[in-house]
Each structure stands twice: as C-alpha cells, then as structure tokens.
C-alpha cells in the first residue's frame, strides 16, 4: 500500500522533472533530503507525526527547506504536505533515484573487497560491468570487508556474484565433507 503511494508520487515528480529538464537538480536535492532524514531522527519523526497542525507544518518546512533547494523540489514538498503524504517522503526519494537510474541506463552495483581497490582496478571493474550489463554508467557503492579474505563480491540488484576466497573455501569444505 505505502509502496504504491510512493511509487505514484515519485513517477509524477520524475515526469515533471523530465518535462522541465530538471531531473538532475531534483535528484541532487532528493539525495540530500534522503540523507538528512536518515541522519536526523527529529526530522523523520516530524514527517511522520500527524498531530502537528497544518500552519505549523508549513512554517517548519519553510524554515528547513526554503531557499536551500530548487523551487520545484520545494513546491513538491509543500504539495506532499497538502496531501498529507509527508510520511512517504523518504521512500519517494529512493524510488525517484531508481526511476532516474532506469531512465539514464545507470547500473547500481555494490561491491566489497578485502582491500581498497586501486583506481585502475575500479576502472577496469566498471568497464567490465558496463559491458556485461549493457549500461551507460555504473554507480557503485564500495565497501572494504577483510572478512572475505580475498577476491571480490559484486551485487547487482538482488543477484550476488561471489568471487571471494571466503566463498570458495566454504564451497571447498562442503565438497570435501559431503563427498
């Protein structure tokens, strides 16, 4: 239910952004807002709280956002307020991000390695993913996890490509024990 609501608002905002060619600005703003909500429990609580009177909400929103974000984004937030859907702001942010990625052919990947990858390696990996998944751009979140011992683990959507030493050892152990 809530996902359906967020999806609808995100799609509408994205379409509006496309028409006004403001998708990148919107993306930038929404990323920031998403981050902000993640960091500030007060903000998250305020967005979810249905008790605060309408005038007060508008005043608070004005104080927080006015002038700091694009007018389109600001208008959108006020619109959400009017429709009493502010609670969905966070999921709208992530859904917007996904819509943009799909429209722009951006591949979202996540990889973990045992040591920090050199820029050269990152470049090679990005190129490989681009060719493999036929996408124009790769946006990846990286993470260093010594626990995987060696190799690399790449996650694209729900699928994990596990090239790590840890997985190999586990598999090897399984094969030796059950053989």
């Amino acid at each position, binding site marked *: 239910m809530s996902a359906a609501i967020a999806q609808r608002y995100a799609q509408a905002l994205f379409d509006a952004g496309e028409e006004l060619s403001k998708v990148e600005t919107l993306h930038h703003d929404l990323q920031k807002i998403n981050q902000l909500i993640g960091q500030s429990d007060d903000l998250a609580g305020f967005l979810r709280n249905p008790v605060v009177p309408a005038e007060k909400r508008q005043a608070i929103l004005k104080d927080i956002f006015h002038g700091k974000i694009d007018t389109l984004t600001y208008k959108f937030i006020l619109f959400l307020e009017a429709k009493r859907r502010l609670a969905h702001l966070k999921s709208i942010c992530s859904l917007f991000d996904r819509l943009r990625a799909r429209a722009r052919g951006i591949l979202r990947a996540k990889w973990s390695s045992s040591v920090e990858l050199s820029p050269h390696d990152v470049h090679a990996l990005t190129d490989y993913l681009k060719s493999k998944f036929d996408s124009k751009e790769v946006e990846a979140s990286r993470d260093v996890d010594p626990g995987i011992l060696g190799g690399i683990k790449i996650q694209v959507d729900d699928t994990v490509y596990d*090239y790590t030493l840890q997985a190999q050892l586990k598999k090897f152990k399984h094969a030796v024990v059950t053989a």
Partner: protein
Amino acid sequence: MHIRPEEITAILKKQLADFEKKVEVYQIGTVLSVGDGIARVHGLSDVMLGELVMFPGNITGMALNLEEDNVGVAVFGDVKRIKEGDEVRRTNRVASVPVGEKLVGRIMDALGEAIDDGAPIEMNEFRQIEVKAPGVMDRQNVHEPLQTGIKVIDALTPIGRGQRELIIGDRKTGKTTLAIDTIINQRGQDVYCFYVAIGQKRSTVAQIHETLKRHGAMDYTMIIAATASDPVAMQFLAPYAATAMAEYYRDSGRHALIVYDDLTKQAQAYRQLSLLLRRPPGREAYPGDIFYLHSRLLERAAKMNDKKGAGSLSALPIIETQAGDISAYIPTNVISITDGQIFLEQDLFNAGQRPAVNPGLSVSRVGGDAQIKAMKQTAGSLRLDLAQYRELEAFSQFASDLDQATRRQLERGQRLMEVIKQDAGVPLPVAYQVAIIYAGVNGFLDDIPHTKVKEFEQRLFEDLESRYAEFVRMFNKEKTLTDPAKQSLNAILTEVKERFALTR
C-alpha cells in the same frame, strides 16, 4: 595399506583445481521483519512460489507469498535467531524430501530429517513435496481390499487399496486406535504404512511408536511427526511431505497406506499461517483455499492402472469434530472429498460399544468392489439388521409388551452389537470375521445370552485356530462361501455351540 602423503596432496590439489575461478552466483534478499514464524523479505526478485530459502545459521524457510514489494516466508526453524536486515539466499529448489527404502521404521520431521536418534537418513533420491495427483488415464478402479482387521469396518464400510476413507469423531472416541489397528493388520500384506502426526503431543507420538513397535509394525511403517511444538509451517507441510514419500511406493507398483492424524490440526496450522501472511479470512477465519489444501492432498491417493505398475496409495485422514458436529466447515469439506467416512460416536463409546462406529452414518462409496465375496455374502443382512435394531432400540424397555417378531429382532440386534465389538490392538483375519458375523446374522447366537456372546466368540476363534484350521485354510484359498463351505461352517458353529453349552 600404503598411503603416501604426496598422493593425498595431489588429490586435494586436484579437487582445489576444480574450484578455481568458479564464481558463485546467487540471489539474495533482506529481512524486513520477522515474527510468529513468518519473515517478510525484501528482494529475492525471481524467487519461485514454494521455493526454499536459506537464512543465516542454516535456517530454512519457504516462500509462500509473493507480493509486489516483499516476499512472505514461512520459517522452519527458530525465528528468534533471525534479525531484521539479515541476508536471505535463494536455493533454487522447491521443497522436497528424501524418499526410498531406507526410510522404513524411521521417525522423521516434515523435511525428512531423522528425529529418532538413529543415523542421519541417506538422501539419494528426492521428491518434491507438492506434486500434482496422477491423471485420469493413469488410474483404475479400486478393487483390492485393504483389510483393516476390524470386523465392523471390513463388514460394513470396506476399504479398498487406493481409497480415501475418512475417520471422523469427537475427541477420545478411538479414531487413532482405529488407524493404528489398521496399520498393525497390514503385517505381511506388503503394504507400507505412513503415520503422519500433526500438532500432537510428543508423548503421544512416542506412545504410538511404542505400540507399533510392540506389534512388529515398525518393520513396514514410517512416522512423520510435526508435533505441537514444531513451527506451524512444518505442521502444514507434514502431510504433503509424507505423501511424497508414500508416492514412491505407489509409483513403483507397491501398496502404501497413509494415516493423517489429524487434518483438523493441519487446517488450523494453515489458518494461522494464512492469517499471519495477511491473506483474507473466510468462514471460521479459514482462508479461501482451505478446500484446495485438503483436496489436492487427498487426490494423491490413487489406484494406478496396470501400465503404471498397479501400485496404490490409500489414505485414512482423521478429522476431529466438536460435540459430534459433522456439519462444521472442515468436516463437511473433507467428507465431500473422501470416498466415505467412518463415524465414531461418543455415546456409543461411553456405552462400551467399541469401536464406537455408527453403522448408520458410516459409508464407503467405493469399497464394495474391493470386499471379498464371502464377506459380501455374509454382511449383506448385517447392515439391515443393525438398522432395524437401532430403530427398535427405543422400545426395548417395553420388551414384554412387544410381539414375538419384534422381540426376536431386538434380541438379534443386541447380539449383533456384541459381535461388532472388538478390543484395541487385536485385528482379526478375515476368515474369523466372516465366521462370527455369519453366526450372528444366521441366528446361531440367538439362544446364547448376549452377555455371553464375547465368550462364545473367543471360544470359536480358539477352535478355528486349532480344531478347524483346515476350514480356515480352505476359506483363505476360496474367499467365497460356496455351498460346501457354508455347510462346513454350519457344522463348525453347531459343534462349537454344543461344547460351549456344556461348559457353561
């Protein structure tokens, strides 16, 4: 024996070489929420319905609800060890259980894991838990008898191999005993038996195992137990898992019998799962597909045709009623699915009429073809006599005011009611059953006081075992009451009666 360390190293190296550069690809999801045996998982985008998924710590689960933004997973292990944010892995296989000859005599859970302290079960061959029932052309008419060894059932509601006969009654009316006696009677009949305990106490399961072992029935029986303390998903799954194991015998041309004890509990387990998965509740809060839950299970009981090996799977589902109400939701469902029912009554049970089968409400819709000829010849008038007796029973208090014919009918009925009494744990060979029922319906017992009928029966069986073993042998060969057979049976009964009168 000579083993060089280099050889071992070489072997290990070779194994290791096979592993190099093999990427492991799997799909994952993240736990959103967990509780009440249900986990909601985000991701797992390509997961199949009924697929097994793996939580950290080797806890398995089964994907039951595929929704737009999450997957509802029934967890087979301890949900307390699963946290929000845990990674869930697909296994790419739908739930299946090990099958084969090695399972005989074991106690297993719904996933085919041994729970009897024995060696782990060798898992060579697997079968999917949920499969479609055999098609129309693969079946044939039920025509071989499945002897329960219980007089009243083999005479009035005979069960055939491949039939589904419901055992229904209130609590403590002898439902389980009836099923266990049937299993005990399959000794030496080449029928593999499965006892599925759903939502029962562990002590009860242990007790049943003990009973079966004492009668030597564990040589051909398997117990699948999802007890009251097991996760509710296991209780829902156990009958399907056991059926998959039994189908192995059916499809290899042998005979199997499966007892579901009881399907009421399974329906309740499924109701709990469905409500937790937020499926809409219907009548008595059961979900909409509760009928399908039982119909697809019981459809898998079948008599296969000769081309398919002529194997069979008979099912004895058990349903517990509340205060004799067979028109509640689940009882009516299962009555309409099965090929007949054995109705056990509290009043009869309390009056000492055990097994407490109500001959009026019990039917077998297909078993008639499977009944042996001699029994058909004998039992034909039994049903009628019993029905008339029940009608006249109310007048029995005024016995002195009744006319001769009515009184005779009452007395006949009384003796027949004695005849169909039987102790638990002593299933009878069909020859003995025919002999005593024949005696009852043909008036041999009319001049024996009805309190002495049991005693006479005992004497008759003893004599059939020793003095008249020849008759029993002949009977077992012919299985019909030919005229000479009838004459010798008449002679036997007269002789036994004479001796019985002397000793009294």
